[in-house]
């Protein structure tokens, strides 16, 4: 994208109409604002956003092209006008709209702060918006628990994080949120089941895992082999074989190579 789209004349013309901001995460110690992306709730590289003059994210392009960027800017311009208008007329309603917008573009990351924000403005939401907000908040809690489960060493902290993930499933009516991100959730819990020597738990997760991989990851060349590998892990677990040592370079087992 950098040496292609960003170097094109079409992009240069587009850039003249906006304030262009570039942030490079470098991991250089002591560098000012190096973790800015994480602070604004961004996940993964590259992240492209359209912000207002206060740095609030108003839109994300749905496609990486000048047409997609222009559509996101147009959407953000409408959101900016609506925000100013609604803040003037109805501050609580404006907070509710802001919460729902942030939820939609995925910039809410802290589960506790987000719930506090939701409780302050839920009175201005319709029932449908409340349901959407509740569901979104539980998904954020699930992501937070997943991060803890991945970073924690085997022990109480990790066990609690796994249980928190199951609690999220209960809050969602006993169903996992069905999206590609569930792959990592299931892999982490399957790894935990392996650690605990619990083939029943592993087996209970496997049908959802296979369905999810076939629905969202079929384009990856190694997808079928990866599914077979999980079946083999389960067979080993039933036979009481010890789990293989964890690979520190690959957490979650994502398969990156495409067909």
């Amino acid at each position, binding site marked *: 994208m*950098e*040496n292609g789209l*960003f*170097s094109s004349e079409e*992009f*240069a013309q587009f*850039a003249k*109409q*906006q*304030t*262009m*901001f*570039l*942030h*490079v*995460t*470098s*991991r*250089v*110690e002591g*560098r000012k*604002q190096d973790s*800015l*992306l994480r602070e604004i709730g*961004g996940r993964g*590289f*590259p*992240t*492209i*956003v*359209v*912000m*207002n*003059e*206060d*740095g609030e*994210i*108003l839109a994300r392009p749905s496609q990486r092209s000048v047409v997609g*960027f222009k559509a996101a*800017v147009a959407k*953000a*311009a409408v959101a*900016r006008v609506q925000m100013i208008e609604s803040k003037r007329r109805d501050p609580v309603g404006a907070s509710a709209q802001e919460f729902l917008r942030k939820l939609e573009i995925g910039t809410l990351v802290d589960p506790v702060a987000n719930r506090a924000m939701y409780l302050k403005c839920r009175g201005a939401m319709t029932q449908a918006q409340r349901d959407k907000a509740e569901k979104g908040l539980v998904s954020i809690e699930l992501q937070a628990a997943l991060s803890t489960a991945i970073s924690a060493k085997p022990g109480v902290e990790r066990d609690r994080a796994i249980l928190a993930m199951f609690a999220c499933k209960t809050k969602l009516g006993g169903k996992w949120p069905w999206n590609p991100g569930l792959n990592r959730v299931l892999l982490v819990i399957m790894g935990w089941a392996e650690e605990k020597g619990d083939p029943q738990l592993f087996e209970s997760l496997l049908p959802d895992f296979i369905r999810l991989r076939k629905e969202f990851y079929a384009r990856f060349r190694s997808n079928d082999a990866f599914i077979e590998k999980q079946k083999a892990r389960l067979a080993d677990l039933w036979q009481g074989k010890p789990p293989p040592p964890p690979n520190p370079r690959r957490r979650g087992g994502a398969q990156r190579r495409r067909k």
Partner: protein
Amino acid sequence: MILPRAYAVSFIFTLCATAAAQGPDSKQDELKNKLAKKLAGTWIKNTAWQTDLADAKAKSKASGKLIFGYFTRSYAP
């Protein structure tokens, strides 16, 4: 016989200490080089990118134009 062994132990110890002392610095130097290389890209020079968010906000406030933010990394391809 003891003297060469003592020299060998001392040599290995010095090597390890040097590696330990230089390790994080050399890693940081590598990250700094990667950042400099990234910021020297032609695609950056083609567009008037602001690299400080406070400057971008001020410019946006003054011009009324929205901020198009692009977040990338230099430590990996």
